[in-house]
Protein backbone atom coordinates (compact mmCIF):
# COMPACT_ATOMS: atom_id res chain seq x y z
CA UNK A 1 0.00 0.00 0.00
CA UNK A 2 1.24 3.53 -0.83
CA UNK A 3 0.90 5.76 2.23
CA UNK A 4 1.61 9.50 2.41
CA UNK A 5 2.19 10.51 6.03
CA UNK A 6 3.05 13.77 7.72
CA UNK A 7 3.28 15.49 11.07
CA UNK A 8 3.06 19.18 12.04
CA UNK A 9 2.65 18.88 15.81
CA UNK A 10 5.99 20.51 16.57
CA UNK A 11 7.86 23.35 14.88
CA UNK A 12 9.10 20.79 12.36
CA UNK A 13 7.31 19.67 9.23
CA UNK A 14 7.89 15.96 8.56
CA UNK A 15 6.70 14.09 5.48
CA UNK A 16 7.17 10.47 4.41
CA UNK A 17 6.04 8.35 1.51
CA UNK A 18 5.75 4.61 2.07
CA UNK A 19 5.84 2.63 -1.14
CA UNK A 20 4.57 -0.85 -1.90
CA UNK A 21 6.95 -3.24 -0.21
CA UNK A 22 7.66 -0.86 2.64
CA UNK A 23 10.36 1.33 1.09
CA UNK A 24 10.24 4.71 2.83
CA UNK A 25 11.10 8.14 1.43
CA UNK A 26 11.41 10.99 3.92
CA UNK A 27 11.65 14.77 3.84
CA UNK A 28 11.61 17.22 6.72
CA UNK A 29 11.95 20.88 7.56
CA UNK A 30 13.41 21.75 10.97
CA UNK A 31 13.33 25.55 11.32
CA UNK A 32 16.09 27.24 13.31
CA UNK A 33 15.28 29.01 16.58
CA UNK A 34 14.74 32.35 14.79
CA UNK A 35 12.79 30.93 11.86
CA UNK A 36 9.05 30.51 11.48
CA UNK A 37 7.69 26.96 11.25
CA UNK A 38 7.18 25.97 7.63
CA UNK A 39 3.94 24.02 8.06
CA UNK A 40 1.92 26.10 5.61
CA UNK A 41 4.74 26.70 3.15
CA UNK A 42 6.68 23.41 3.21
CA UNK A 43 4.21 20.57 3.84
CA UNK A 44 2.60 20.20 0.41
CA UNK A 45 5.79 21.25 -1.36
CA UNK A 46 7.78 18.42 0.25
CA UNK A 47 4.95 15.94 -0.33
CA UNK A 48 4.85 16.86 -4.01
CA UNK A 49 8.64 16.48 -4.24
CA UNK A 50 8.61 13.02 -2.61
CA UNK A 51 5.93 11.83 -5.03
CA UNK A 52 7.87 13.19 -7.99
CA UNK A 53 11.07 11.49 -6.77
CA UNK A 54 9.26 8.17 -6.39
CA UNK A 55 7.54 8.59 -9.74
CA UNK A 56 4.16 8.19 -8.05
CA UNK A 57 1.25 10.40 -9.04
CA UNK A 58 -1.11 11.86 -6.44
CA UNK A 59 -3.71 9.39 -7.70
CA UNK A 60 -1.39 6.58 -6.64
CA UNK A 61 -1.66 7.51 -2.94
CA UNK A 62 -3.98 5.01 -1.28
CA UNK A 63 -3.86 6.21 2.30
CA UNK A 64 -3.20 9.58 3.97
CA UNK A 65 -1.78 9.42 7.50
CA UNK A 66 -1.58 12.52 9.67
CA UNK A 67 -0.10 13.23 13.08
CA UNK A 68 -2.87 14.52 15.37
CA UNK A 69 -0.60 15.94 18.07
CA UNK A 70 -0.81 17.12 20.71
CA UNK A 71 1.25 20.15 19.74
CA UNK A 72 0.95 23.62 18.29
CA UNK A 73 -2.69 24.34 17.42
CA UNK A 74 -2.11 26.20 14.18
CA UNK A 75 0.48 23.69 12.98
CA UNK A 76 -1.85 20.78 13.71
CA UNK A 77 -4.70 22.46 11.86
CA UNK A 78 -2.51 22.96 8.79
CA UNK A 79 -1.61 19.25 8.87
CA UNK A 80 -5.13 17.99 9.51
CA UNK A 81 -6.74 20.36 6.97
CA UNK A 82 -4.18 19.29 4.38
CA UNK A 83 -4.76 15.59 5.11
CA UNK A 84 -8.52 15.97 4.93
CA UNK A 85 -8.34 18.04 1.72
CA UNK A 86 -6.09 15.46 0.06
CA UNK A 87 -8.27 12.54 1.15
CA UNK A 88 -11.41 14.37 -0.03
CA UNK A 89 -9.86 15.16 -3.41
CA UNK A 90 -8.35 11.69 -3.92
CA UNK A 91 -11.17 9.71 -2.31
CA UNK A 92 -8.33 7.97 -0.48
CA UNK A 93 -8.29 6.42 2.98
CA UNK A 94 -7.60 8.73 5.92
CA UNK A 95 -5.98 7.79 9.24
CA UNK A 96 -4.99 9.91 12.24
CA UNK A 97 -2.05 8.92 14.43
CA UNK A 98 -0.94 10.26 17.80
CA UNK A 99 2.26 12.29 17.45
CA UNK A 100 3.22 11.29 21.01
CA UNK A 101 2.81 7.61 20.14
CA UNK A 102 4.96 8.15 17.04
CA UNK A 103 7.73 9.61 19.22
CA UNK A 104 7.51 6.73 21.71
CA UNK A 105 7.34 4.06 19.03
CA UNK A 106 10.43 5.33 17.27
CA UNK A 107 12.30 5.43 20.58
CA UNK A 108 11.19 1.96 21.71
CA UNK A 109 13.79 -0.64 20.98
CA UNK A 110 15.72 1.57 18.62
CA UNK A 111 19.48 1.43 18.88
CA UNK A 112 20.74 4.94 18.47
CA UNK A 113 24.24 6.30 18.06
CA UNK A 114 23.72 8.86 20.81
CA UNK A 115 21.68 6.60 22.98
CA UNK A 116 23.44 3.69 24.65
CA UNK A 117 22.00 0.62 23.01
CA UNK A 118 18.49 -0.75 22.45
CA UNK A 119 15.88 0.71 24.72
CA UNK A 120 13.55 -1.76 26.33
CA UNK A 121 12.21 0.23 29.23
CA UNK A 122 9.59 2.93 29.39
CA UNK A 123 9.29 6.07 27.29
CA UNK A 124 8.03 9.56 28.06
CA UNK A 125 7.00 11.50 24.96
CA UNK A 126 7.37 15.20 25.72
CA UNK A 127 6.13 17.69 23.14
CA UNK A 128 6.73 21.37 23.84
CA UNK A 129 3.36 22.88 24.81
CA UNK A 130 4.77 26.44 25.32
CA UNK A 131 3.71 28.55 28.32
CA UNK A 132 6.23 26.60 30.39
CA UNK A 133 4.49 23.26 29.88
CA UNK A 134 4.95 20.03 27.94
CA UNK A 135 2.39 17.65 26.52
CA UNK A 136 3.58 14.56 28.39
CA UNK A 137 2.52 10.96 27.78
CA UNK A 138 3.93 7.69 29.14
CA UNK A 139 4.43 4.48 27.16
CA UNK A 140 5.74 1.00 27.81
CA UNK A 141 8.13 -0.22 25.15
CA UNK A 142 6.85 -3.58 24.03
CA UNK A 143 9.66 -4.86 21.90
CA UNK A 144 11.32 -3.31 18.92
CA UNK A 145 9.47 -0.37 17.41
CA UNK A 146 6.37 -0.86 19.46
CA UNK A 147 4.96 1.10 22.37
CA UNK A 148 1.71 0.97 24.29
CA UNK A 149 0.16 3.94 26.02
CA UNK A 150 0.11 3.95 29.83
CA UNK A 151 -0.76 7.59 30.52
CA UNK A 152 -2.37 9.62 27.71
CA UNK A 153 -0.99 13.06 26.79
CA UNK A 154 -1.63 15.97 29.13
CA UNK A 155 -0.23 19.48 29.48
CA UNK A 156 1.91 19.73 32.62
CA UNK A 157 4.83 21.73 33.93
CA UNK A 158 8.16 19.88 33.45
CA UNK A 159 8.77 19.82 37.23
CA UNK A 160 5.63 17.71 37.67
CA UNK A 161 6.94 14.86 35.53
CA UNK A 162 7.82 12.90 38.68
CA UNK A 163 4.15 12.53 39.56
CA UNK A 164 3.32 11.50 35.99
CA UNK A 165 5.94 8.77 36.24
CA UNK A 166 4.45 7.73 39.57
CA UNK A 167 1.04 7.47 37.94
CA UNK A 168 2.46 5.43 35.06
CA UNK A 169 4.16 3.02 37.46
CA UNK A 170 0.89 2.53 39.35
CA UNK A 171 -0.72 1.62 36.05
CA UNK A 172 1.70 -1.14 35.20
CA UNK A 173 4.37 0.58 33.19
CA UNK A 174 6.63 -2.41 33.84
CA UNK A 175 10.27 -2.29 34.79
CA UNK A 176 13.33 -0.58 33.44
CA UNK A 177 14.55 2.96 33.12
CA UNK A 178 12.63 5.90 31.65
CA UNK A 179 13.72 7.48 28.42
CA UNK A 180 12.40 10.98 27.69
CA UNK A 181 12.19 12.11 24.07
CA UNK A 182 10.71 15.03 22.14
CA UNK A 183 11.32 18.76 21.71
CA UNK A 184 9.92 19.26 25.21
CA UNK A 185 12.65 17.02 26.64
CA UNK A 186 15.29 19.09 24.85
CA UNK A 187 13.83 22.44 25.86
CA UNK A 188 13.35 21.58 29.54
CA UNK A 189 16.34 19.24 29.92
CA UNK A 190 17.61 21.22 32.93
CA UNK A 191 14.36 20.85 34.87
CA UNK A 192 13.63 17.29 33.78
CA UNK A 193 16.98 15.76 34.63
CA UNK A 194 16.14 16.20 38.31
CA UNK A 195 13.83 13.21 37.78
CA UNK A 196 15.54 9.86 37.35
CA UNK A 197 15.41 9.39 33.59
CA UNK A 198 17.58 9.50 30.51
CA UNK A 199 17.42 12.10 27.76
CA UNK A 200 19.33 11.44 24.53
CA UNK A 201 21.64 14.18 23.21
CA UNK A 202 19.87 17.27 21.87
CA UNK A 203 20.92 16.29 18.35
CA UNK A 204 19.38 12.79 18.57
CA UNK A 205 16.80 12.00 15.93
CA UNK A 206 14.73 10.36 18.69
CA UNK A 207 13.57 13.87 19.65
CA UNK A 208 11.97 14.39 16.25
CA UNK A 209 8.53 13.13 15.25
CA UNK A 210 9.23 10.84 12.28
CA UNK A 211 6.68 10.82 9.49
CA UNK A 212 7.86 7.34 8.48
CA UNK A 213 6.67 6.09 11.87
CA UNK A 214 3.36 7.92 11.28
CA UNK A 215 3.01 5.90 8.04
CA UNK A 216 3.87 2.61 9.77
CA UNK A 217 1.46 3.21 12.65
CA UNK A 218 -1.26 4.16 10.17
CA UNK A 219 -0.93 0.81 8.42
CA UNK A 220 -2.34 -0.94 11.47
CA UNK A 221 -5.27 1.44 11.90
CA UNK A 222 -8.74 1.27 10.43
CA UNK A 223 -9.38 4.32 8.21
CA UNK A 224 -12.06 6.75 9.31
CA UNK A 225 -15.32 6.92 7.40
CA UNK A 226 -15.82 10.70 7.62
CA UNK A 227 -13.31 13.57 7.44
CA UNK A 228 -14.70 15.27 10.49
CA UNK A 229 -13.63 12.31 12.61
CA UNK A 230 -10.05 13.50 12.09
CA UNK A 231 -9.41 16.45 14.40
CA UNK A 232 -6.30 17.65 16.23
CA UNK A 233 -5.72 16.20 19.68
CA UNK A 234 -5.75 19.66 21.30
CA UNK A 235 -5.56 18.60 24.98
CA UNK A 236 -6.20 22.22 25.90
CA UNK A 237 -9.38 24.22 25.66
CA UNK A 238 -9.36 27.71 24.16
CA UNK A 239 -8.28 30.39 26.67
CA UNK A 240 -11.43 32.42 26.03
CA UNK A 241 -13.64 29.53 27.19
CA UNK A 242 -11.62 29.04 30.36
CA UNK A 243 -11.66 32.78 31.07
CA UNK A 244 -15.43 32.93 30.61
CA UNK A 245 -15.91 29.99 32.95
CA UNK A 246 -13.70 31.46 35.65
CA UNK A 247 -15.64 34.73 35.45
CA UNK A 248 -18.89 32.77 35.77
CA UNK A 249 -17.47 30.79 38.72
CA UNK A 250 -16.62 34.05 40.49
CA UNK A 251 -20.18 35.22 39.94
CA UNK A 252 -19.24 37.98 37.51
CA UNK A 253 -21.22 38.86 34.44
CA UNK A 254 -18.26 39.03 32.10
CA UNK A 255 -18.59 42.73 31.39
Amino acid at each position, binding site marked *: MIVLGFDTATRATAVALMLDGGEMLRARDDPGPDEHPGH*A*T*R*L*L*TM*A*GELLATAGVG*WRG*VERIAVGLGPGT*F*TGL*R*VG*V*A*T*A*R*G*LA*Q*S*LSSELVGVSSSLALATAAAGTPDAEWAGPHEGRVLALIDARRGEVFAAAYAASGSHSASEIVPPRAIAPDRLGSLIGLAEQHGAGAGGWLAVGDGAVRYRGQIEAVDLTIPDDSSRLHLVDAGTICELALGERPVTA*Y*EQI*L*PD*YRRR*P*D*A*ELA*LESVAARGGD*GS
Partner: protein
Amino acid sequence: MRVLALETSCDDTCAAVVDGDGRIQANVISSQEVHDRFGGVVPEIASRHHLELVNLVVDQALADAGVALEEIDLVAATQGPGLVGALLVGLSTAKALAAARELPFAAVDHIQGHVAANFLAGEGGEPAFEPPFLCLIASGGHTLLTHVGEPGRFTVLGRTLDDAAGEAFDKGARMLGLGYPGGAALEQLAAGGDPEAFSFPGSRRDRLQGGRGPGRQAFANSLDFSFAGLKTALLYRLREMPEAQVRERAADLAASYQAAIVESLILRAEQALERTDATRLAVGGGVAANGELRRRLGALAATVHVPPRELCTDNAAMIASAALHGEHLPYPAYLGLDAYATGEGSP
Protein backbone atom coordinates in the same frame (compact mmCIF):
# COMPACT_ATOMS: atom_id res chain seq x y z
CA MET B 1 -14.55 27.14 -16.58
CA ARG B 2 -15.88 26.28 -13.14
CA VAL B 3 -14.35 27.56 -9.86
CA LEU B 4 -14.56 26.05 -6.39
CA ALA B 5 -13.71 28.71 -3.78
CA LEU B 6 -13.26 28.68 0.01
CA GLU B 7 -13.43 31.61 2.41
CA THR B 8 -12.50 31.29 6.12
CA SER B 9 -11.03 34.68 7.02
CA CYS B 10 -13.22 35.31 10.08
CA ASP B 11 -16.08 33.30 11.59
CA ASP B 12 -18.01 32.11 8.52
CA THR B 13 -17.01 28.85 6.87
CA CYS B 14 -17.86 29.34 3.20
CA ALA B 15 -17.56 27.42 -0.06
CA ALA B 16 -19.00 28.26 -3.46
CA VAL B 17 -19.07 27.06 -7.03
CA VAL B 18 -19.20 29.73 -9.75
CA ASP B 19 -19.05 29.28 -13.53
CA GLY B 20 -16.87 31.22 -15.95
CA ASP B 21 -19.62 33.75 -16.65
CA GLY B 22 -19.88 34.67 -12.99
CA ARG B 23 -23.09 32.71 -12.43
CA ILE B 24 -23.37 31.28 -8.92
CA GLN B 25 -24.03 27.53 -8.87
CA ALA B 26 -23.66 27.14 -5.11
CA ASN B 27 -22.93 29.53 -2.26
CA VAL B 28 -22.76 27.82 1.14
CA ILE B 29 -22.22 29.93 4.26
CA SER B 30 -21.97 28.24 7.62
CA SER B 31 -22.03 30.92 10.30
CA GLN B 32 -20.47 30.01 13.62
CA GLU B 33 -22.96 31.21 16.17
CA VAL B 34 -20.62 30.43 19.03
CA HIS B 35 -18.85 33.75 19.51
CA ASP B 36 -21.74 35.86 20.80
CA ARG B 37 -21.19 34.93 24.44
CA PHE B 38 -17.59 36.16 24.17
CA GLY B 39 -18.66 39.56 22.84
CA GLY B 40 -16.54 39.12 19.73
CA VAL B 41 -14.93 36.55 17.47
CA VAL B 42 -12.39 34.39 19.32
CA PRO B 43 -9.68 33.39 16.81
CA GLU B 44 -8.85 30.00 18.35
CA ILE B 45 -12.52 28.99 18.56
CA ALA B 46 -13.16 30.22 15.01
CA SER B 47 -10.22 28.16 13.72
CA ARG B 48 -11.43 25.01 15.48
CA HIS B 49 -14.91 25.38 14.02
CA HIS B 50 -13.59 26.05 10.52
CA LEU B 51 -11.65 22.79 10.64
CA GLU B 52 -14.68 20.85 11.84
CA LEU B 53 -16.88 22.24 9.07
CA VAL B 54 -14.70 22.93 6.06
CA ASN B 55 -14.93 19.61 4.18
CA LEU B 56 -18.66 19.33 4.83
CA VAL B 57 -19.20 22.83 3.48
CA VAL B 58 -17.20 21.91 0.34
CA ASP B 59 -19.29 18.74 -0.09
CA GLN B 60 -22.46 20.79 0.34
CA ALA B 61 -21.37 23.34 -2.26
CA LEU B 62 -20.56 20.59 -4.77
CA ALA B 63 -23.90 18.91 -4.06
CA ASP B 64 -25.82 22.20 -4.40
CA ALA B 65 -24.09 22.86 -7.72
CA GLY B 66 -24.76 19.30 -8.82
CA VAL B 67 -21.13 18.75 -9.79
CA ALA B 68 -18.29 16.46 -8.72
CA LEU B 69 -14.72 17.54 -8.04
CA GLU B 70 -13.86 16.11 -11.50
CA GLU B 71 -15.83 19.00 -12.99
CA ILE B 72 -13.88 21.72 -11.18
CA ASP B 73 -11.28 23.57 -13.28
CA LEU B 74 -9.89 26.03 -10.75
CA VAL B 75 -9.67 26.05 -6.94
CA ALA B 76 -9.49 29.33 -5.01
CA ALA B 77 -9.22 30.45 -1.40
CA THR B 78 -8.90 33.65 0.59
CA GLN B 79 -5.23 34.22 1.45
CA GLY B 80 -5.74 37.35 3.61
CA PRO B 81 -6.29 39.71 5.27
CA GLY B 82 -8.03 38.12 8.25
CA LEU B 83 -7.36 35.84 11.21
CA VAL B 84 -4.29 33.86 10.14
CA GLY B 85 -5.22 30.68 11.99
CA ALA B 86 -8.69 30.76 10.43
CA LEU B 87 -7.37 31.60 6.95
CA LEU B 88 -4.89 28.71 7.13
CA VAL B 89 -7.69 26.16 7.53
CA GLY B 90 -9.37 27.21 4.29
CA LEU B 91 -6.13 27.85 2.43
CA SER B 92 -4.59 24.48 3.46
CA THR B 93 -7.78 22.64 2.54
CA ALA B 94 -8.06 24.39 -0.83
CA LYS B 95 -4.39 23.88 -1.70
CA ALA B 96 -4.71 20.17 -0.87
CA LEU B 97 -7.92 19.80 -2.90
CA ALA B 98 -6.18 21.41 -5.89
CA ALA B 99 -2.78 19.68 -5.47
CA ALA B 100 -4.24 16.18 -5.43
CA ARG B 101 -5.75 16.86 -8.86
CA GLU B 102 -2.91 19.09 -10.05
CA LEU B 103 -5.47 21.82 -10.72
CA PRO B 104 -4.56 25.49 -11.07
CA PHE B 105 -5.08 27.66 -8.00
CA ALA B 106 -6.00 31.27 -7.26
CA ALA B 107 -5.04 32.94 -3.97
CA VAL B 108 -7.52 35.76 -3.39
CA ASP B 109 -7.28 38.96 -1.39
CA HIS B 110 -10.39 39.24 0.79
CA ILE B 111 -10.96 42.90 -0.10
CA GLN B 112 -10.64 42.06 -3.79
CA GLY B 113 -13.33 39.49 -3.06
CA HIS B 114 -15.73 42.14 -1.73
CA VAL B 115 -15.04 44.21 -4.85
CA ALA B 116 -15.58 41.17 -7.08
CA ALA B 117 -18.99 40.46 -5.53
CA ASN B 118 -20.13 43.15 -7.99
CA PHE B 119 -18.92 41.11 -10.98
CA LEU B 120 -21.22 38.19 -10.18
CA ALA B 121 -24.25 37.84 -12.42
CA GLY B 122 -27.55 38.59 -10.72
CA GLU B 123 -30.04 35.91 -9.82
CA GLY B 124 -32.34 36.89 -12.65
CA GLY B 125 -29.42 36.75 -15.06
CA GLU B 126 -29.02 40.53 -14.99
CA PRO B 127 -25.51 41.62 -15.96
CA ALA B 128 -22.85 42.30 -13.38
CA PHE B 129 -21.75 45.79 -12.42
CA GLU B 130 -18.80 46.55 -14.70
CA PRO B 131 -15.80 48.76 -13.83
CA PRO B 132 -14.86 51.51 -13.67
CA PHE B 133 -16.60 52.33 -10.38
CA LEU B 134 -15.91 53.38 -6.82
CA CYS B 135 -16.46 50.71 -4.20
CA LEU B 136 -17.27 51.39 -0.55
CA ILE B 137 -16.67 48.34 1.64
CA ALA B 138 -17.93 48.52 5.21
CA SER B 139 -18.09 45.54 7.53
CA GLY B 140 -17.14 44.47 11.04
CA GLY B 141 -13.58 43.88 9.88
CA HIS B 142 -12.87 46.59 7.35
CA THR B 143 -13.97 49.98 6.08
CA LEU B 144 -12.45 51.35 2.94
CA LEU B 145 -13.13 53.22 -0.23
CA THR B 146 -11.55 51.96 -3.42
CA HIS B 147 -11.40 52.87 -7.07
CA VAL B 148 -11.89 49.88 -9.35
CA GLY B 149 -10.47 50.60 -12.79
CA GLU B 150 -10.60 47.08 -14.18
CA PRO B 151 -11.86 43.77 -12.78
CA GLY B 152 -8.61 42.45 -11.32
CA ARG B 153 -7.32 45.70 -9.81
CA PHE B 154 -8.31 48.36 -7.34
CA THR B 155 -6.64 51.28 -5.60
CA VAL B 156 -7.43 52.30 -2.05
CA LEU B 157 -8.62 55.91 -1.75
CA GLY B 158 -9.34 55.88 1.97
CA ARG B 159 -9.54 53.48 4.88
CA THR B 160 -10.50 53.54 8.54
CA LEU B 161 -7.84 54.83 10.88
CA ASP B 162 -9.24 52.91 13.84
CA ASP B 163 -12.48 50.91 14.17
CA ALA B 164 -14.40 49.48 11.23
CA ALA B 165 -17.94 50.77 10.61
CA GLY B 166 -19.52 47.42 11.50
CA GLU B 167 -17.42 47.31 14.65
CA ALA B 168 -18.77 50.76 15.58
CA PHE B 169 -22.31 49.43 15.12
CA ASP B 170 -21.60 46.38 17.29
CA LYS B 171 -19.82 48.34 20.03
CA GLY B 172 -22.58 50.92 20.14
CA ALA B 173 -25.18 48.18 20.34
CA ARG B 174 -23.30 46.59 23.21
CA MET B 175 -23.17 49.87 25.13
CA LEU B 176 -26.91 50.23 24.62
CA GLY B 177 -27.39 46.75 26.05
CA LEU B 178 -28.37 45.12 22.77
CA GLY B 179 -25.90 42.19 22.98
CA TYR B 180 -23.36 41.04 20.42
CA PRO B 181 -23.40 41.24 17.46
CA GLY B 182 -25.97 44.01 17.72
CA GLY B 183 -25.72 46.02 14.51
CA ALA B 184 -29.11 44.82 13.29
CA ALA B 185 -30.73 45.33 16.72
CA LEU B 186 -29.36 48.85 16.84
CA GLU B 187 -30.90 49.58 13.45
CA GLN B 188 -34.27 48.28 14.67
CA LEU B 189 -34.13 50.40 17.81
CA ALA B 190 -33.05 53.44 15.75
CA ALA B 191 -36.12 53.13 13.52
CA GLY B 192 -38.26 54.67 16.28
CA GLY B 193 -35.81 57.41 17.22
CA ASP B 194 -34.81 60.92 16.20
CA PRO B 195 -31.47 60.90 14.33
CA GLU B 196 -30.86 64.56 15.22
CA ALA B 197 -31.58 64.26 18.93
CA PHE B 198 -27.91 63.92 19.85
CA SER B 199 -24.80 65.30 18.18
CA PHE B 200 -22.14 62.62 17.75
CA PRO B 201 -18.75 62.94 15.98
CA GLY B 202 -19.28 62.47 12.26
CA SER B 203 -22.86 63.62 12.27
CA ARG B 204 -23.93 66.54 10.11
CA ARG B 205 -24.49 68.79 13.13
CA ASP B 206 -21.09 67.93 14.54
CA ARG B 207 -19.40 68.66 11.22
CA LEU B 208 -20.94 72.13 10.99
CA GLN B 209 -19.65 72.97 14.46
CA GLY B 210 -16.34 71.12 13.94
CA GLY B 211 -12.94 72.07 15.41
CA ARG B 212 -10.05 73.21 13.25
CA GLY B 213 -6.83 71.53 14.50
CA PRO B 214 -4.15 70.68 11.91
CA GLY B 215 -4.58 66.90 12.41
CA ARG B 216 -8.29 67.34 12.03
CA GLN B 217 -7.76 69.32 8.83
CA ALA B 218 -5.55 66.59 7.31
CA PHE B 219 -8.20 64.05 8.16
CA ALA B 220 -10.93 66.27 6.72
CA ASN B 221 -8.98 66.53 3.45
CA SER B 222 -8.42 62.79 3.22
CA LEU B 223 -10.94 60.12 2.32
CA ASP B 224 -10.17 58.17 5.49
CA PHE B 225 -12.69 57.10 8.13
CA SER B 226 -12.59 57.22 11.91
CA PHE B 227 -15.14 55.73 14.30
CA ALA B 228 -13.25 55.50 17.58
CA GLY B 229 -14.24 59.04 18.64
CA LEU B 230 -17.89 58.26 17.97
CA LYS B 231 -17.76 55.19 20.19
CA THR B 232 -16.12 57.18 22.99
CA ALA B 233 -18.68 59.97 22.63
CA LEU B 234 -21.52 57.48 23.09
CA LEU B 235 -19.79 56.02 26.14
CA TYR B 236 -19.46 59.45 27.78
CA ARG B 237 -22.98 60.42 26.85
CA LEU B 238 -24.33 57.24 28.47
CA ARG B 239 -22.25 57.83 31.59
CA GLU B 240 -23.65 61.28 32.18
CA MET B 241 -27.26 60.25 31.65
CA PRO B 242 -29.32 58.77 34.50
CA GLU B 243 -30.26 55.16 33.81
CA ALA B 244 -33.96 55.88 33.49
CA GLN B 245 -33.25 58.58 30.92
CA VAL B 246 -31.02 56.20 28.91
CA ARG B 247 -33.91 53.75 28.76
CA GLU B 248 -36.37 56.46 27.81
CA ARG B 249 -34.12 57.89 25.08
CA ALA B 250 -32.57 54.64 23.83
CA ALA B 251 -34.22 54.96 20.42
CA ASP B 252 -32.98 58.56 19.99
CA LEU B 253 -29.48 57.53 21.05
CA ALA B 254 -29.47 54.63 18.61
CA ALA B 255 -30.85 56.76 15.78
CA SER B 256 -28.32 59.55 16.35
CA TYR B 257 -25.44 57.10 16.67
CA GLN B 258 -26.45 55.27 13.51
CA ALA B 259 -26.88 58.57 11.67
CA ALA B 260 -23.32 59.55 12.56
CA ILE B 261 -21.89 56.31 11.13
CA VAL B 262 -24.00 56.54 7.98
CA GLU B 263 -23.16 60.23 7.57
CA SER B 264 -19.42 59.46 7.73
CA LEU B 265 -19.76 56.79 5.05
CA ILE B 266 -21.95 58.91 2.78
CA LEU B 267 -19.74 61.99 3.17
CA ARG B 268 -16.64 60.08 2.00
CA ALA B 269 -18.54 58.45 -0.84
CA GLU B 270 -19.76 61.88 -1.99
CA GLN B 271 -16.29 63.40 -1.75
CA ALA B 272 -14.73 60.48 -3.63
CA LEU B 273 -17.31 60.71 -6.40
CA GLU B 274 -16.57 64.45 -6.73
CA ARG B 275 -12.81 64.07 -6.70
CA THR B 276 -12.62 61.22 -9.19
CA ASP B 277 -15.42 62.32 -11.51
CA ALA B 278 -16.80 58.81 -11.11
CA THR B 279 -20.51 58.34 -11.66
CA ARG B 280 -20.88 54.79 -10.41
CA LEU B 281 -20.63 53.46 -6.88
CA ALA B 282 -20.74 49.89 -5.60
CA VAL B 283 -21.15 48.91 -1.95
CA GLY B 284 -20.06 45.80 -0.08
CA GLY B 285 -19.61 44.41 3.43
CA GLY B 286 -22.20 43.58 6.07
CA VAL B 287 -22.99 47.24 6.79
CA ALA B 288 -24.44 47.47 3.27
CA ALA B 289 -27.48 45.68 4.71
CA ASN B 290 -28.26 48.75 6.83
CA GLY B 291 -31.51 50.32 5.66
CA GLU B 292 -30.55 53.88 6.56
CA LEU B 293 -27.30 53.58 4.59
CA ARG B 294 -29.19 52.18 1.61
CA ARG B 295 -31.69 55.04 1.77
CA ARG B 296 -28.92 57.65 1.80
CA LEU B 297 -27.03 55.88 -1.00
CA GLY B 298 -30.15 56.03 -3.11
CA ALA B 299 -30.11 59.83 -2.84
CA LEU B 300 -26.53 60.15 -4.17
CA ALA B 301 -25.97 61.61 -7.62
CA ALA B 302 -24.50 58.35 -8.92
CA THR B 303 -25.51 54.95 -10.24
CA VAL B 304 -25.37 52.82 -7.10
CA HIS B 305 -25.05 49.04 -7.06
CA VAL B 306 -25.61 47.07 -3.87
CA PRO B 307 -25.29 43.28 -4.30
CA PRO B 308 -27.83 41.10 -2.48
CA ARG B 309 -27.21 40.80 1.24
CA GLU B 310 -25.66 37.31 1.12
CA LEU B 311 -23.06 38.61 -1.33
CA CYS B 312 -22.30 41.72 0.76
CA THR B 313 -21.39 39.78 3.89
CA ASP B 314 -18.45 37.35 3.75
CA ASN B 315 -19.02 34.53 1.27
CA ALA B 316 -17.04 32.33 -1.09
CA ALA B 317 -18.90 33.26 -4.28
CA MET B 318 -17.16 36.64 -4.20
CA ILE B 319 -13.81 34.85 -3.75
CA ALA B 320 -14.59 32.69 -6.79
CA SER B 321 -15.49 35.83 -8.73
CA ALA B 322 -12.19 37.48 -7.80
CA ALA B 323 -10.40 34.25 -8.77
CA LEU B 324 -11.94 34.36 -12.23
CA HIS B 325 -10.46 37.83 -12.77
CA GLY B 326 -7.15 37.19 -10.99
CA GLU B 327 -3.97 35.20 -11.51
CA HIS B 328 -4.18 31.41 -11.89
CA LEU B 329 -1.11 29.59 -10.60
CA PRO B 330 -0.36 26.24 -12.25
CA TYR B 331 0.50 23.17 -10.15
CA PRO B 332 2.87 23.09 -8.22
CA ALA B 333 3.56 26.86 -8.07
CA TYR B 334 1.04 27.44 -5.28
CA LEU B 335 1.97 24.67 -2.84
CA GLY B 336 4.10 27.02 -0.70
CA LEU B 337 1.53 29.83 -0.35
CA ASP B 338 1.04 31.17 3.18
CA ALA B 339 -1.80 33.26 4.65
CA TYR B 340 -1.38 36.90 5.65
CA ALA B 341 -3.08 38.79 8.47
CA THR B 342 -3.02 42.44 7.45
CA GLY B 343 -2.73 44.75 4.50
CA GLU B 344 -4.93 44.89 1.48
CA GLY B 345 -3.93 45.55 -2.06
CA SER B 346 -4.51 44.58 -5.61
CA PRO B 347 -2.13 41.97 -6.96
